[in-house]
């Protein structure tokens, strides 16, 4: 008797809860857009209604116009390609060096005692401080820029790989020992898969730093690239061009980060991570 009375009551509370769950899944990302969209529309309106001339802080429509104009003249793709090439080359070099050094330091205690103090000391130097030296050593052109980006990418990857290897669970390694894996098989079948999640994170951090350092690199005398657009916009008083370059940086940064995420996703499906709960 009590059951038949209780059940409809339970259903009543459950239905709105399911609806609110659906609503929040859809609404949460939208909610995050409310503030920027309101600010942008507000600024657009303020300029349109004449409360501001919008010269130093151009309205969104002006920034959009600038992007379209740059794209139309072919200028934009030239700058984007120049920047992408620098980030790509610097990232590749930094990742290769960071991975090799990190793996050596993580795997061999002797190598870690020998190398790690030096690497950590170098890490303590703000990487921008290398700029004058890199220009003296490598010239003002591409090489010094790529080198600076590579230095920025190197440290998070090095630390990520070394830390990941050092923190591989002894119990999992013991499983490898029980099945008498050789050194190489132990690396391939136990260590590599175990360090992969942390490695992907370090790649993403490294890429983020790569985008940060490309701006610094392009500030030190470039004739093309998104960083050049920033400097050019400042020197010629074109705030819309600066904002356009910033927007494109944001889009490219997010896009390349997303590419790493997508590429790594099939390899990390096994993870018992917070985000996979409920999805399975």
């Amino acid at each position, binding site marked *: 008797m009590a059951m038949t009375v209780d059940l409809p009551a339970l259903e009543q509370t459950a239905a709105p809860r399911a609806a609110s769950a659906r609503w929040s899944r859809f609404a949460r990302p939208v909610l995050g857009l409310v503030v920027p969209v309101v600010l942008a529309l507000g600024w657009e309106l303020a300029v349109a209604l004449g409360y501001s001339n919008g010269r130093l802080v151009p309205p969104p429509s002006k920034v959009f116009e600038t992007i379209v104009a740059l794209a139309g003249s072919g200028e934009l793709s030239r700058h984007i390609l120049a920047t992408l090439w620098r980030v790509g080359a610097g990232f590749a070099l930094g990742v290769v060096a960071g991975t090799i050094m990190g793996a050596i330091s993580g795997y061999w205690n002797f190598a870690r005692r020998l190398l790690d103090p030096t690497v950590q000391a170098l890490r303590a130097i703000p990487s921008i401080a290398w700029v004058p030296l890199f220009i003296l050593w490598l010239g003002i052109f591409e090489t010094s820029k790529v080198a600076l980006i590579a230095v920025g990418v190197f440290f998070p990857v090095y630390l990520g790989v070394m830390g990941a290897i050092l923190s591989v669970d002894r*119990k*999992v390694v*013991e*499983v490898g*020992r*029980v*099945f*008498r894996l050789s050194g190489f*098989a132990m690396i391939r*079948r*136990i260590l590599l*898969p*175990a360090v*992969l999640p942390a490695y992907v994170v370090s790649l993403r951090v490294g890429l983020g730093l790569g985008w940060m350092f490309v701006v610094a690199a392009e500030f030190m005398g470039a004739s093309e690239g998104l960083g050049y657009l920033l400097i050019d916009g400042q020197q010629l008083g074109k705030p819309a061009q600066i904002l356009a370059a910033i927007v494109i940086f944001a889009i490219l940064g997010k896009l390349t980060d997303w590419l790493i995420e997508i590429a790594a996703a099939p390899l990390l*499906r*096994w*993870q*018992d991570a917070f985000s996979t709960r409920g999805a*399975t």
Partner: protein
Amino acid sequence: MLALKEVGKTYPNGVHALERFSAEIAPGEIIAIIGGSGCGKSTLLRAIAGLDRATTGSVTLDNAVITSPHAKIGIIFQEPRLLPWLSVADNIGFGLADLPADVRRERVASALARVALADKASAWPRELSGGQAQRVAIARALVPQPEVLLLDEPFSALDAFTRRDLQDHLLDLWADTRPTLILVTHDVDEAVVLADRVLVMRPRPGRLFEQITINLARPRDRKSELFDTFKRRVLTALDRSLDRSVRDVTDKSSAGEAMWW
């Protein structure tokens, strides 16, 4: 024949974990090692597995001295220790990498069926319950067909129902190829249900205190009076093993002595 000859272990930090442990274990025999904490049970098991080397004495299997993990010796740990990046089927086949793919697939499939997890073949370890995960670990250890299987408190993390289930299941699987089983446990019930012989150890330093032969026919009825008698016998031995005033009886006890009534 697995022979332990005066096996002793002192860790580098000076802890004297195990002292002159000797036993001979026949092929197909099921041994339970029981004792208070710190009595060197796990140390002994790791020495037999070849994971840690004994500092004195020797472990030999069919006259081969064991100093490192051996193809004929498998081990199941307290936690399943499945590799989280491999599916259930790949975890079970982990030790069969040297076999041709089709043979491996066949062996894994029959092992999956044997532990009643055929429907979980492509699942990730994180999707299994504790009992299922431990069943996968048992299958992984058994599939290379070891002659000796070591179990380090394999069911202690499971609830009472699952534990009882897996104990019966383990005996079932054991009957297929009859490997030697050496089981470290805290659980007197488990020792009496599974073992042909219970070795009671005493702590600080760990050494053999008493051997009790459980000559009960299988399957054993946990509720029978005879079962209780054996349990009481093991419990009494355990109590005595922790009483410092009782002298070691290691040298006098033999397998036949358990027929005391």
